[in-house]
């Protein structure tokens, strides 16, 4: 049996009293984020071609493709589609970013997404001109 004694934690208590506090002064000081941090999704509308691969691979059905009419290429009329993101249900897995062949999507370091208005999380950057 181990030797019973109280006060095994006392030296550690004194050590911790001399150290700086563990908690970070977050809202007043910016916090350090790692290089690979996965935050809010962002799109570069100029790079997006509307190929809808992101909508096909998304596990959380965040992305819906919106028809924006047609455009003429040679003799043919091609449909123009652009993605609409419902970021409220985004799980930040990054599958769309990995699969985008045109590097239009990226996960930013922005994590302060709390809002009282759920509709404000609809990202329609690629649709609105």
């Amino acid at each position, binding site marked *: 049996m*181990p*030797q*019973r*004694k*109280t006060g*095994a*934690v006392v030296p*550690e*208590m004194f050590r*911790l009293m001399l150290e700086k506090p*563990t908690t970070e002064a977050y809202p007043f000081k910016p916090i350090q984020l*790692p*290089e*690979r*941090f*996965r935050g809010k999704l962002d799109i570069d509308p100029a790079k997006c071609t509307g190929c809808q691969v992101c909508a096909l*691979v*998304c*596990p*959380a059905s965040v992305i819906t493709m919106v028809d924006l009419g047609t455009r003429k290429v040679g003799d043919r009329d091609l449909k123009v589609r652009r993605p609409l993101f419902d970021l409220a249900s985004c*799980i*930040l*897995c*990054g*599958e769309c970013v*990995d699969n985008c062949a045109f590097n239009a999507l990226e*996960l930013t370091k922005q994590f302060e997404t709390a809002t009282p208005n759920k509709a404000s999380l609809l990202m329609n950057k690629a649709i609105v001109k």
Partner: protein
Amino acid sequence: MSTTPEQQKREESVGLMEYSTESLVPFGPIHPALKEPEYFKLVLEGERIVNVIPRIGYVHRGLEKAAESRPWVQNMYMFERTCGICSFVHSLCYGQAVEELTMYQVPRRAKYIRTIIAEMERIHSHLLWVGLMGHWAGFDTLFMWVWNDREVVLDLVEAIAGNRVHKSMNAICGVRRDMPENMEDRIVERMRFLTDRARYYRDVIDSEETMLKRTENIGRVSAETVEKLCAVGPMARYVGLKRDVRLNDPYAAYDEVPLDVITTTQGDVHALLRLRLDELVVSANMVAYAVENLPDGPIRVKVPPIIPAGEHSSHCEAPRGEIFYFVKSSGGRTPDRVKSRQPTMANIPTALEMLKGQTLADIPIVLTAIDPCFGCMDRMSFYDTETNKSWTWSGEELRQYGINYYFPERSKKQRDLARAVSSSTNQCLREDF
């Protein structure tokens, strides 16, 4: 004195047996000692527990059914969300079962990275559990210190995967992200720090009266009982059974990384504390070894979205014990059937045995000792307590039940039609309608 069933039912509903010294105490489903809802009906004699009747199924989420309508890769992210603590190992286990169907080989470097993340997850899960045990033993100082040290390993996971809990690292036949460059020294140094801390906590729990009085000789079960009840993971190892999937059926890179399976024979809650802290040291050594001996090469093989027909199962050692996944494919874009079994499901019978003979005040510490994750384990089945009948439904029966429930008018016509066409409708289904 004999009582009629009606009488007995009335007495039970009151909560007190009139002609007996035993009393019934409901525990849960909402209770401060339970982090997730689960109901236990306790039969007490004085303040000693003589019997426990569990009722599971409060957190059923329909994961297995949902998996049948999603593509193979998307299911991986869904199963990762089975648990908020041991998330990576679920996607690993599901991925391994699918990989066996594809017949592609996982690159060696990917296997090592999987091992590193899985062991880091074990460290963070065990630290979380030790903190909770301190909390329920009335030793909140330990809780604060341990959870502070847990940040060390969570920061490493965040630097590698980009998120503290849901790593999203696994792909079918590989991993999605390589290890960051120039991080070996930092990981090895942090692992040494955690090893020292685990040894210190081991001294604390062995010498502090607060912990000893709350954990020694609590929740004793014999090795025979545990073997009979098929406990898994630390719950089997704490009575001396050497059960560990990493040793018995190595997956990922566990056949190359030196592994030391810890067992004790003490067989009480205190032994569980020591066992998990010792396992933490082993895991830290494994991470350090894997990082130092990381092989070069690719990390992923591209797999077509259609998986060949067949069925396969896979099992892995999660921090709580063995998890099991069964996958069946008919050669399409979605699985035909996915079955998952979580360690808490296997450990509940042992937990009930541990509770017998303990006082009411020991329930939180004994229930926490099995490291329960009730949300993980709930799956669907029916059990009628009045007639002792149990049954399961097929997907078609479940669909019919849904139609009948929401559209009774429409269902009446359909039911008449179904009866006319076939007389082989399920008996239970008929009774229910």
